[in-house]
């Protein structure tokens, strides 16, 4: 481990040249011979009965090859609890409800045809907040629950309840208790590349999906189910992922538009491409799960947490995608961010006529941590303890088992908090405050902290959290690595290449990663849960071991050496300690191959991490490594305008081991800006279920001019289960931004912001309320 050639080095990404020259092929760039263009008609009402659909004028338009509605196709149940259909029959439940679809020879014709479809609706009263949806007499959004029984309320029955220890005992023991409500809203992924797919059937009715999914193998399963419904039970599905223009969780489910493309391709016998406009991307791509969180927690006289109680109300929207399952991760900070012995967590998920939600970087963790970490500051104040000190008193430590039965092996939380504190100049700020020397008045300054815990060693949300890998050495000494990993920009393929070169002992240029093809590459559960580097690199280490066993057996024969004594470095095989008498890999391979009864060298493995599914009580070691971090910011609040300016942003992350610091910094910079957008500017505004700001002019993403002075701090704790000690870092960076900023605003002006985003309007309003 002492001499690493590639691991830990700032090696630029291997797909960089393709991307800077414009050669990378995204779904936008893909054309297939004879390809048609699909377009979708969405609902005009958030809740209505469909009385009739007239597609005659659309069908008559020259260039139109197919027009389909729910009446023309068999029902394909989709979504987490199968309460959704690609095309809606009889009733629409949200503004994004897909009613009809067209395939035409040209995108303009397809769009025109969609505009010619006449739908007659009978509007129904709608519900647009979870509170409204739970009120007595509220209209039922689904008549049946997901088991087909008559629905009695708008609640989605999911088992998100966790009790650890004895919360009542913890409450009675608490010297200080705080309670507050926090709200987060709809946030859009805003991948720069909008959603798209090409569905293509061959002559034998096998389906190829040119796709941008983060879950090619689970998607393959979903598409196969759809084909069964179409009577194509024997057909095969191949998923070919294109270069993906941003993921962030948005491609973790299979979406209506993908099935619509399949239906259109099936109807026409031609490849059909559906590519979202930006407006569609805001409307019909599911959002981050909005939350209403009631939190109370308490500590004893020494500042040690005694209990935490969280009740959440979640707006499910009209259908159920992964948003409804985010409580499984919201529980992680609820139960295990800091040492808290007694925990109660409960989430109610309620249908409304809003857009539905799905996975989004952090998978609910940012929303939950917003409540937990703001509440930590409130409690520190109630207890009269410095917020940084309060966090250190309660910080998780290595070797602990949390109340939810997470086994914390490596943990650098305290170090992260200390480094952020130092980077901010926290102690100097405290001293200046005590002396009355800090900036107040119309440009008040303040500092705030927030920490995070997240899965860092995979997450067993499915029965398998595994990753298959095949390695193949060719006659030229080059290695092809077949992996199910999906590259969504995070650099997973490049990291994997480094780890493969290191563990096999080859020059990195001789490693070729083959991916994004379900026909060729072995199964992987998907690019989610910050798991890809952890899982695929562990698979690589395991597979490299298998490969070298075979290779050294052959080399041992040729070199008259004990295979156990052999090593390979940069493509040279030698006896340990006798590097000068090395044999080139190429020679070993050629001799082995080009001989009678010859052999080639290949290896395969399936790595499944030692983590556990949550049990019925929602307990178990969900991830075999846990990622920690702390963000700290200094803000300046303009009390005349409500504008919040970030003057300093320190972001410390316990990454186990930095496999490539360049990429880790990229993840931290990007996630901190994304987290800050969620904190300050980003909100998909819905009015009676209708998107009011579905464009980049009106939906406020941060730009290069919103200079965010982020200092990434990498803390290495060398996790025993991690590849070379590494843990996940994809999601953690956007988790603590909102509470760190909210806490800094409070420190600056004494106003507790409890709703995201903390826009100037909201800050001003909160100041006025405080002064009232």
């Amino acid at each position, binding site marked *: 481990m002492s001499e690493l050639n590639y691991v830990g080095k700032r090696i630029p990404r291997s797909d960089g040249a393709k991307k800077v020259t414009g050669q990378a092929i995204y779904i936008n760039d893909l054309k297939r011979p004879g390809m048609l263009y699909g377009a979708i008609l969405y609902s005009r009402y958030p809740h209505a009965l469909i009385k009739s659909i007239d597609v005659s004028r659309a069908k008559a338009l020259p260039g139109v090859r197919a027009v389909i509605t729910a009446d023309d196709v068999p029902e394909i149940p989709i979504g987490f609890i199968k309460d959704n259909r690609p095309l809606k029959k009889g009733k629409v439940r949200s503004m994004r409800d897909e009613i009809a679809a067209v395939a035409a020879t040209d995108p303009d014709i397809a769009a025109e045809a969609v505009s010619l479809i006449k739908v007659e609706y009978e509007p129904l009263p709608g519900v647009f907040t979870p509170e409204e949806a739970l009120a007595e007499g509220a209209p039922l959004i689904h008549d049946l629950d997901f088991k087909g029984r008559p629905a009695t309320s708008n609640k989605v029955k999911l088992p998100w309840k966790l009790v650890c220890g004895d919360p009542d005992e913890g409450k009675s023991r608490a010297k200080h208790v705080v309670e507050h409500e926090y709200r987060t809203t709809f946030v859009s992924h805003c991948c*720069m590349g909008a959603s798209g797919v090409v569905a293509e059937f061959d002559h034998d009715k096998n389906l190829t999906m040119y796709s941008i999914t983060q879950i090619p193998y689970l998607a393959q399963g979903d598409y196969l189910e759809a084909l069964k419904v179409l009577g194509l039970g024997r057909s095969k599905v191949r998923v070919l992922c294109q270069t993906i223009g941003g993921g962030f969780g948005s491609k973790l489910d299979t979406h209506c538009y993908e099935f619509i493309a399949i239906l259109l391709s099936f109807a026409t016998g031609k490849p059909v491409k559906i590519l979202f406009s930006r407006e569609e991307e805001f409307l019909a791509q599911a959002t981050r799960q909005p939350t209403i969180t009631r939190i109370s927690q308490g500590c004893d006289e020494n500042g040690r947490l005694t209990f935490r109680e969280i009740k959440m109300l979640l707006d499910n929207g009209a259908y159920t995608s992964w948003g409804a399952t985010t409580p499984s991760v919201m529980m992680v900070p609820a139960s295990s961010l800091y040492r808290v012995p007694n925990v109660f967590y409960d989430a109610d998920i309620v249908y409304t006529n809003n857009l539905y939600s799905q996975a989004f970087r952090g998978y609910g963790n940012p929303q939950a941590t917003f409540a937990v970490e703001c509440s930590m500051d409130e409690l520190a104040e109630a207890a009269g303890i410095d917020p940084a000190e309060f966090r250190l008193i309660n910080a998780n430590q290595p070797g602990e088992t949390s109340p939810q039965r997470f086994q914390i092996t490596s943990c650098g939380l305290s170090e992260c908090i200390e480094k952020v504190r130092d980077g901010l100049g926290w102690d100097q700020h405290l001293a200046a405050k005590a002396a009355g020397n800090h900036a107040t008045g119309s440009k008040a300054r303040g500092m705030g902290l927030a920490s995070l815990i997240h899965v860092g060693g995979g997450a067993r949300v499915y029965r398998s959290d595994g990753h298959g890998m095949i390695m193949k050495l060719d006659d030229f000494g080059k290695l092809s690595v077949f992996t199910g990993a999906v590259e969504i920009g995070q650099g997973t393929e490049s990291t994997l290449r480094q780890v493969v070169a290191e563990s096999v002992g080859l020059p990195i240029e001789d490693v070729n990663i083959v991916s994004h093809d379900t026909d060729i590459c072995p199964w992987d559960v998907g690019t989610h849960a910050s798991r890809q580097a952890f899982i695929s690199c562990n698979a690589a280490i395991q597979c490299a071991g298998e490969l070298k066993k075979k290779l050294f057996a052959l080399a041992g024969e040729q070199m008259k050496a004990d295979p156990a004594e052999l090593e390979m470095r940069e493509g040279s095989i030698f006896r340990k300690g006798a590097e000068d008498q090395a044999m080139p890999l190429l020679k070993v391979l050629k001799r082995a191959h080009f001989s009678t009864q010859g052999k080639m060298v290949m290896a395969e493995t399936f790595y499944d991490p030692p983590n556990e599914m949550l049990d019925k009580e929602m307990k178990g070691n969900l991830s075999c490594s846990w990622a920690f971090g702390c963000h700290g910011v200094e803000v300046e609040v303009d009390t005349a305008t409500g504008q919040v300016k970030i003057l300093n942003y320190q972001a410390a992350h316990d990454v186990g081991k930095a496999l490539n610091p360049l990429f880790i910094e990229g993840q931290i910079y990007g996630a901190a800006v*994304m987290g800050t957008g969620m904190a300050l500017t980003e909100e998909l505004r819905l009015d009676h279920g209708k998107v009011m700001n579905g464009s980049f002019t009106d939906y406020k993403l941060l730009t290069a001019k919103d200079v965010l002075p982020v200092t990434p701090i990498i803390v290495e704790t060398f996790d025993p289960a991690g590849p070379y000690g590494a843990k996940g870092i994809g999601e953690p960076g956007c988790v603590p931004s909102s509470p760190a900023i909210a806490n800094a605003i409070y420190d600056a002006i004494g106003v507790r912001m409890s709703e995201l985003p903390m826009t100037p309007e909201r800050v001003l309003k909160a100041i006025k309320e405080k002064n009232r």
Partner: protein
Amino acid sequence: MKKHMQFILNGHEVTAEADTRQSLLSLLREEFELTGAKEGCGEGECGACTVIVDGLAVNSCIMPALEASGCRVETVEGLAGPDGSLHPLQQAFVDFGAVQCGFCTPGMVMSAKALLDEDAAPDEETIRTAIEGNLCRCTGYKQIVDAIKTAAEKMP
């Protein structure tokens, strides 16, 4: 209605028949198969379609193709040397981690190129202003700004 047009594309004189309603982006992508420039929004808001027209970075998705008649148009495909060697900006983007998903990259690189053609030693503020109209969801912009700064220093 289609009209004949002539312009200089990445150093070569070219002709095309462009529809009066067609955007420059569509012409470049559909007729010339230069798919580096991307449509991220189609409304001139995200900058993924940025190309350089007579020295100015433009959103090609909202520029009528015919307006490029007689102009010098540069796209990301024209940046690398004849031997395939990357332009210093492209190289710096790769080296500094300024590329993640890469969708905004061609537009981002072209905005930076237009800036450096005009101002060989821009300060950070100027760089950030030049790429303000290029949205990126992955990187947080820091490594992009660093790449542009370094490329400026390295360029002759």
